[in-house]
Structures are given as structure tokens and as C-alpha cells.
């Protein structure tokens, strides 16, 4: 149950680039999902705690907190562990991927990405849960 009675959302998109966040927001809303956006790490953390999204898209480099940090925090919290974390970032080197996976991320996608593909992944996973 979410912390303070706020409605549960399906997806959180956290990215300091407003355009990217809005693009994903648009697509998911079109499909009927409940989406929230966050533009920095602290806002993202807050929304995660309050709204318990099923899915979280995290950019690696964000002001206030990085994607990896948030991922670790989520995965080490017993109530938040089940959230599906997708790291969505421009940094696509092996090292970054390893680090993110070690932090517990479920998936790692590099930009630029195809919104259609991301959408189908999300659909598949949400349906299986």
C-alpha cells in the first residue's frame, strides 16, 4: 500500500532532460497507464516512496541523486524491491551497464531508443506480473 493514500501509479519516468521525460509520458498516457514525471533524483525518490509505481525509468545522470543510487536504494528496501527498474541513459559503455546491473537494475537501455520497443517491453512485463 502506498504511504499516504495517494493513488498508485504504474510508471515513473525520471530524467533531467524534459523532452525525453515528456515523450515517454505521452506514450504511456496514450496507452492508458498512470504516469508521473520527475526531473531530479530527490523528486524521483519521493514519488517512488509515495506512489509505489510498478515501473521506474531512471536516467543515470541527474541532479540531486544519480540513477544508480536510487536503484540501490529501491532494491535494498523490502517494500520497494519488486519495482521493475529500467536504467535509461546515454552512457552506454560496458562499465556503466555492469555497474547498474550490480546495483540491482532489472534492465539497461541506451538512448536513443525506440519508444515503440520500450512500450512493448513494458506491456509484456506488466501483463506477466
Amino acid at each position: 500500500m502506498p504511504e499516504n493514500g495517494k493513488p498508485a501509479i504504474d510508471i515513473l519516468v525520471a530524467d533531467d532532460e524534459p523532452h525525453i521525460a515528456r515523450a515517454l509520458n505521452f506514450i504511456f498516457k496514450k496507452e492508458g497507464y498512470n504516469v508521473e514525471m520527475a526531473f531530479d533524483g530527490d523528486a524521483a525518490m519521493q514519488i517512488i516512496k509515495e506512489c509505489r509505481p510498478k515501473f521506474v525509468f531512471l536516467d543515470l545522470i541527474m541532479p540531486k541523486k544519480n540513477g544508480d543510487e536510487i536503484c540501490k536504494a529501491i532494491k535494498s528496501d523490502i517494500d520497494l524491491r519488486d519495482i521493475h527498474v529500467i536504467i535509461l541513459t546515454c552512457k552506454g559503455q560496458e562499465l556503466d551497464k555492469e555497474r547498474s546491473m550490480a546495483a540491482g537494475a532489472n534492465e539497461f537501455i541506451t538512448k536513443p531508443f525506440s519508444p515503440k520497443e520500450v512500450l512493448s517491453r513494458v506491456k509484456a512485463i506488466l501483463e506477466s506480473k
Partner: protein
Amino acid sequence: MLYCLSFFVVLLLCMFTGGIESPARFLYFPLIVILSQRLSFKALIWTGILFSLFFTLLLFLFKTPAIQIPGFTVEIFAYILSAFAAGFCSQTKQEERERYDNAISTFHSLSDALNYKNMNLQTTLDALSAAHNKLQEYDQNRTKFLSNVSHELRTPLSSIRSYSEILLNYDDIDTDTCREFIQIINSESERLSALVNEVLDIAKIESGKLELNISPVNPDFLLKESEKIIKPMASDKGLLLVLKYDEKMPDVRGDRNQLIQVLVNLLNNAVKFTNTGTITLGARQNGGFVEFSVSDTGEGIFPEEKEVIFDEFYRISEVVENRPKGSGLGLSISKKIVEYHGGKIWVDSNLGEGSTFCFTIPCYTGKVRSTTDHIYFPEKSSGQAYLPILVLSSDITVRRALRKKLEELGYQTLGADTPARASQVVSETRPGLIVTDIIEERDDLIELLRWARNSRVQTILVSLHIFTFGEEPRLALSGYLSKPFDKHEVMSLLEAFNEKGDRMVLISPDKEESRTLQVLLGSVGYDARLISESALAVRECIASPPESIIIGSFRKNQLEEIISSLKTNSQTKNIPIFLILGTALHNYVKTVTLDKASQRTGKDGLYKLVGEIESAYTRNQDGI
């Protein structure tokens, strides 16, 4: 001689031991053997002959009865023969000794040569190691740069891709939203395009391939053009754009488009970070430079960010809605362009009170008249009351001679032998110009130079020497290399005098600076040899003259000696000499040096100094 006396002792001994015929005379034989160790062949023969003569003389003198002629002859014969024998022994010994000495000296010179090669090898190894480290550093920076660049490129690309895909796949988007998305695609592609251009710019500058179209550029023109470009952006945001500049500014030496690029970059930032108020675009003359400034009434900059703000990809970290994101490259490109021109860029700012970005560009100084045909001293413009020139030099002959020359040309002069004394003098009488040959970075000198800069009194640094008594002081140096060494600066300085592959000699007691320079010179195609001991270096230069000589940090008297020796020797007097100058000094002074033409004539350029003085006064007319 002393040895010969010993023979007389023998004879005397004879006399005392029973006359000339006493057997004591046979002491000659062991004596001659002993002396063969010491005397030369000739000396021994003479000793033998003299002894025999004296013996014979004494014999006849004392009229010894019954001189046995055969016995006597044999005796004399024996004396002479043994002298010869001793002589031959001595000769053999001499030869052996010579051979031994030769062997020793060959050994020593081989050993010296080996030591020397060893030292050079060590220096080369150190230089290679330093070069290796530098290369690794460059490599790491490259990798970081590339990773940053790819990151930066992907961001707008993802927006373009996402939105274009959305527009293709969904039919039911309303027109307004469609338009919005297309607008985003458009602006992101512009952003991408701008980024690509900036990256190419940086690559060009870094690789030294940036072609500057150098010409005299009017600062007025630069300001007005930049204003035109920025005005629409400023008005859109409701900001006031103001121009503020001195009336009569000299032309600057630079590439017009590059300089406009720098100004526009600074103005862009100013507009970006200011929400209300005024942006002031200004220019004023400061010594041999024109100082441009862009001030805003915006947010200001954190003190710790003032230096790093010019780093590549550095962006102010606060994210604000509606603020277009820059690439972080603008300021670093501007810095590179300014430094390429020979200027400096910096920022003054207080949080909440706005910022002022300033950069300097050197003034355009016309070509100094320096042909081999006519060398003359420019006439002081009549009717001008010039403030006196302060001549600062610890060498009394140089100081006197220079003052005399300047006074002959109609200038008033003041003299000082130390920076401290100079500071005293200027506090009493304000000079129009300072001419000095002091290069040691002492606190009192820096203080004086700082005062001069703040008071808009130009300081000219020149290396003057008097090589022959009663002569005029002459310029000795062809250039100053300032630390830290900048590849482009060094190259442009040396290129005027040298070709690729030219041999140079570096004379410096400071291993650190010389190795760095040696590596740098090697990397731009010069063959630089390092010698740290000054006397040896001068001998080497005379024996095998290089194409250029670079002298490092020596004490003044040693420096004097080195330069005098080089300039008075026929083999080396026309070789261009460069001096390594400390960082601090370089910022404050204008240097006057020999160029290729004046080098060749041998009439070493005092007229250059005077020409520079004249232009300095002409430029500073308003300041007086």
C-alpha cells in the same frame, strides 16, 4: 741542475778521501744509474762528459805521478760509456712513461665521453618518460572527451527519435501537440548541429589546424556586430543591451570572425543566465591590449566555479525549466580562441549580483621598419610633451648608455638600479614608460610591474648588452619563451628563425624546465640538445654552431657571461638566442627582441627599442 751538482760532490769527496785518485771516484757509476731514472738522455751524456773533463782536469792539476795512460783512457771511456748506457735506459723509460700517460689520458677521455653520453641518455630517458606520461594524459583526456561528446550527441538524438516515432505511430494526436512535437524535433536537431560544429571547432583548435585570418580589427566593429546578433534574443527576454567603450581604441590583432564568435558566446551566456536587467558590452584599452567585457545582472557564479567554468563540458549544475541547455563547450572554445590570439580570459562575479566576463586581445602593432638597407631612429613627434622614461637596469654602463641615447633623441629619462629604488622614483615622478632588462622574478619587481599595469604605464622588457667599451647597448635576444611552455607559442616564436630539423642547443641548469622544453621541441620537429653547464655549452656552440640557442634560468651574471661569450665569438654571434621567461613576468611586460632581419645585419636593433617606445607613447597619448 741539482742532480749535476751531485757529481761535483763526488769529486769533492774524492779530494777529501785521499786525492783525485781515491776510489771514491767510482761512486760515479751507481750515481749515474740512479740519475738515469731522472735525467734525460742528453743531460746524462753531458753529465758524463763534464765529469770526465773535470776528472781529467783535476788529475792534471794535481799532477799525480805516473798517470797510467791506458788505465786512465779506459776509465774515461768507462765513464762516458756508462753515461750512454744510462741515457738509453732513461730514454726507454721516457718512452714507456709517455705511452703510459697516453693510455691514461685516452682512458680519461673515453670515461668522460661515456659519462657525458650517460647523462644525455638519462636526460633522454627522463624526457621520454615525461613524454609518455603526457601522452597517457592526453589519451585519457581524449577518451573522456569522446565519451562526453557521445553522451551529448545522444541526448538530442533521442528526443528527435522519440518524437518522430510518436508522430508516425499515432494518428489521433491533436494539431497543437503535433506542432509542439515537431517544434521539439526541429530545435533538438539544431542543438545537435550546433554541438557538432562546436566539437569540430575544438578538434581544429586542439590539433593546431585552426586557421586564423589575422588582420587589424576594429574593436568598435566587433562590438557592434555582436550586438546586432544578440539584440533579438535580449529583447525577447526583456533585457536591456548597452554598449560602453572608449572613444579612440587601437585596432587589435586577430581573426575577425573568431573574435565575434567569442563575444557572441559570452553574450549568449549572459542572456541565458539573466532574467531581468541589463547586459553591458564594453571595450577599453589596457596597455598593449584591448580588454573586452560582457557584464550581466544575472545570478552570479559560485567562487569555486570561476576557474572550472572554462573547462570543456562544464555546465552550471542547476536545472531550470525553460533554460535551453548548452553543450558546456562554448566557454572552453572561447578560452582557446582567446589564448590562441595571445590574450587572457577570466570572470569576476558575485553571487546574486551578476557576472563580468573579460578577455584581452593584443593590439595590432604595425611592422617595425627593419630592412637591411635603412636603419634609422624614428623622430619623436614634435610638439608632444612626453612623460620621462624610467630606465631600470642593475648594469650601470647599460643604464647610462641607454639614457644617453634616449636623451639624444629628445626624451627625458629617469634611472634606477633596483626595483625597490624604481618604486621610490615612480612615487615621486610619474614616468610615461618603463624600460627594463631585469628578468628575475622578485617580489619587488612584480610589485613595480603591477603598479605600472594598474597605472597604465607600459613596461618594456629588453635584453641589452654592451659588448665593446664605449659602444651603444645592443639587443641580444630574439625572443622570450614563457613558462608554462605552450606549443603554439613556442612554435610561432621559433618558426620565424628556424626550419624543421634545425639543431638547437638548450642551456639550462634547471633539469625540469629543460626536459619539458626538450620534449616539446622534439615533438615539433627540432633537434634539441641539452647542456646544463654553461661554460661547456658555450664551447660546444662555438665548436659546432647550432641554428638556435635557448637559455634557461641562470643568475644574472652567469647569463651576462653566456650571452657575451656567444655574441663576441665570430662563430656564434649571429645565432638567434631565446630566453626562458617566468610566467608572472610575461603577463606584465611587452618584450622587444631582434627579428631575423636585424639579426642578419649585425647592427643589433636599438632602433627597434626606440620604435617601440615611440609607438607606446603614441598609443598612450590620451593617458598622459
